């Protein structure tokens, strides 16, 4: 059964998603437990897949037994095996944490449909990481967007408009992607990524291939919230139910960035975007502007979820910067940053969810004394914030470190400065929260002499929320400490031959 694991990651989620509404007609509470069980099985399959990739190298799984390029295949290689397991892990943890929050925010009658769509969203994200077929990727893209539109619209006031804007922009992105697929198909006749990788070098100077590349970039850029195309992202993350922003913030944009990796590295050759057309150079500067813009906008926000959303835009910039540097260190740093940012952003959004669940506060100015009410949660928040700023030994430090090394070896001194400046900006907006939480009682109580601040009773979030948050915090540290192992066993193999 081990060689069936790639299909099982998808099939378990898919089949249980169809039973949830049927069983939900009889018992609404069953929906959550079915979803959790399915996610656990899927996570186990993802781990098995990762294990077999580590043992035997790239795994090919032919759907329906048809050989590519006629059939659709799943290709799990060193780049996506880790991301697959990461997404399975994070969505599993998020699901555990989301239980109470969903009970609070979503009407009981809508649970079956909600959990069904939730499972399908995760399923499509995992499918996007695994698939080796361009058109299959489009279908997954649409499943993930469609479920996300619905789930985002379940949020607070304003969620409907956020969801509608996302729908319009998302369809533009998906249509552009589809046009790109069509343009590649018309000159190559193939939809399989490996096949395209073989065919495209002969067509480097075709105008069609250039157009296809441009449309892929714009389409994927909309999906991942790259800087000038990010307009849907802040509203969608802010207005969505907490559980949904917790799910989509660490996973959805990361998967889209992974698709960018795929397209640049293993559909087109990396030489295409560096030497044939100046795409990499353009991406570099877009990413640099995005990093600064996201950080500055994050400083200006008062709502914690909106602040995290803008910080996401800036972090996406880092990953794209790493890819666009197109050298060894840059690629490794970009790929590692997918891991570190997924853990950190997942942890931060979980903390935001716990705070909203327990206190209803979202304005940063009211965070005073939260550390006494929720000590574990805020401790995890500090670790995640340190990772976002880039303090060793958290994961964020190492991924940024590799990206900085990449800028240095590419002699892009301005970009080095941009990354350092943005780290300072990150520090400003995260330490502002930490200061409000931990130190405002000292500062405010300074006038009263030795008088102790009034003690606040501990009112921690429920255990089902705290444990996933702590696991994520440990994950941040682990991904930092074991970053060399991740690179040694997985990421060093993604670098194409002949790259310095």
């Amino acid at each position, binding site marked *: 059964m081990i060689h069936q694991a790639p299909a099982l990651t998808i099939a378990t989620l898919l089949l249980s998603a169809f039973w949830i509404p049927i069983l939900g007609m009889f018992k609404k509470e069953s929906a959550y437990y079915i979803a959790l069980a399915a996610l656990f099985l899927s996570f186990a399959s993802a781990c098995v897949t990762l294990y077999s990739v580590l043992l035997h190298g790239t795994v090919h799984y032919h759907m329906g037994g048809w050989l590519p390029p006629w059939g*659709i295949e799943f290709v799990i290689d060193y780049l996506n095996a880790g991301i697959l397991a990461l997404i399975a892990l994070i969505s599993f943890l998020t699901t555990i944490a989301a239980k109470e929050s969903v009970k609070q925010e979503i009407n009981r009658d809508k649970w079956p449909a909600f959990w069904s769509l939730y499972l399908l969203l995760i399923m499509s994200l995992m499918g996007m990481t695994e698939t080796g077929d361009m058109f299959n990727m489009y279908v997954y893209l649409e*499943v993930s967007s*469609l479920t996300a539109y619905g789930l985002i619209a379940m949020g607070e006031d304003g969620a409907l408009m956020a969801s509608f804007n996302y729908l319009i922009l998302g369809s533009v992105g998906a249509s552009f992607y589809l046009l790109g697929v069509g343009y590649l198909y018309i000159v190559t*006749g193939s939809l399989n990524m490996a096949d395209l990788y073989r065919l495209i070098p002969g067509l480097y100077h075709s105008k069609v291939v250039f157009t296809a590349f441009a449309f892929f970039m714009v389409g994927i850029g909309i999906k991942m919230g790259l800087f000038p195309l990010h307009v849907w992202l802040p509203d969608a993350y802010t207005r969505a139910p907490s559980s949904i922003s917790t799910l989509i913030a660490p996973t959805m944009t990361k998967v889209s960035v992974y698709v960018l990796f795929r397209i640049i590295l293993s559909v087109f050759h990396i030489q295409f975007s560096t030497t044939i057309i100046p795409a990499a150079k353009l991406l570099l500067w877009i990413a640099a502007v995005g990093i600064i813009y996201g950080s500055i906008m994050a400083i200006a926000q008062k709502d914690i979820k909106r602040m995290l959303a803008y910080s996401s835009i800036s972090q996406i910039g880092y990953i794209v910067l790493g890819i666009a540097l197109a050298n060894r260190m840059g690629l490794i740093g970009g790929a590692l940053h997918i891991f570190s940012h997924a853990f950190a952003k997942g942890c931060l959004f979980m903390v935001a969810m716990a705070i909203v669940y327990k206190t209803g506060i979202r304005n940063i100015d009211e965070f005073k004394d939260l550390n006494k009410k929720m000590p574990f949660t805020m401790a995890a928040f500090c670790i995640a914030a340190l990772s976002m700023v880039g303090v060793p030994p958290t994961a964020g430090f190492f991924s940024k470190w590799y990206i900085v090394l990449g800028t240095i070896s590419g002699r892009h001194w301005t970009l080095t400065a941009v990354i350092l400046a943005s780290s300072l900006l990150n520090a400003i907006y995260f330490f502002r929260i930490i200061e409000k939480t931990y130190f405002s009682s000292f500062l405010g109580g300074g006038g009263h002499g030795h008088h102790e601040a009034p003690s606040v009773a501990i009112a921690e979030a429920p255990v089902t929320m705290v444990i996933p948050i702590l696991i994520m915090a440990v994950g941040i540290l682990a991904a930092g400490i074991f970053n060399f192992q991740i690179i040694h066993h997985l990421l060093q193999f993604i670098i194409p031959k002949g790259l310095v």
Partner: protein
Amino acid sequence: MKPLKLFALITVLVTGFLLMYGVNDMPNLGSNLSPASMHVSPYYIQHSEEDTNAPNFVSAVLADYRGFDTLFETTVIFCAGMVCMMLLRENKQ
């Protein structure tokens, strides 16, 4: 003209120009020898009866060779139904 509309017009024109630029190098319409009809699709036309017992190539490709796509296409429909139900259906008191 409002600035937003002007911006939209420019975006649309740039997109159209880019697509038009790509059209230059495309094979002619209805060509028998275009790569699109030479590389993968002959296999479907020649072997679908033998492989799947379905004389309709579109059905054979849809449900068998690329059946995995179709599974998710059906899932997309299912999602749309679920989303409409979740958003619109009133709670039964």
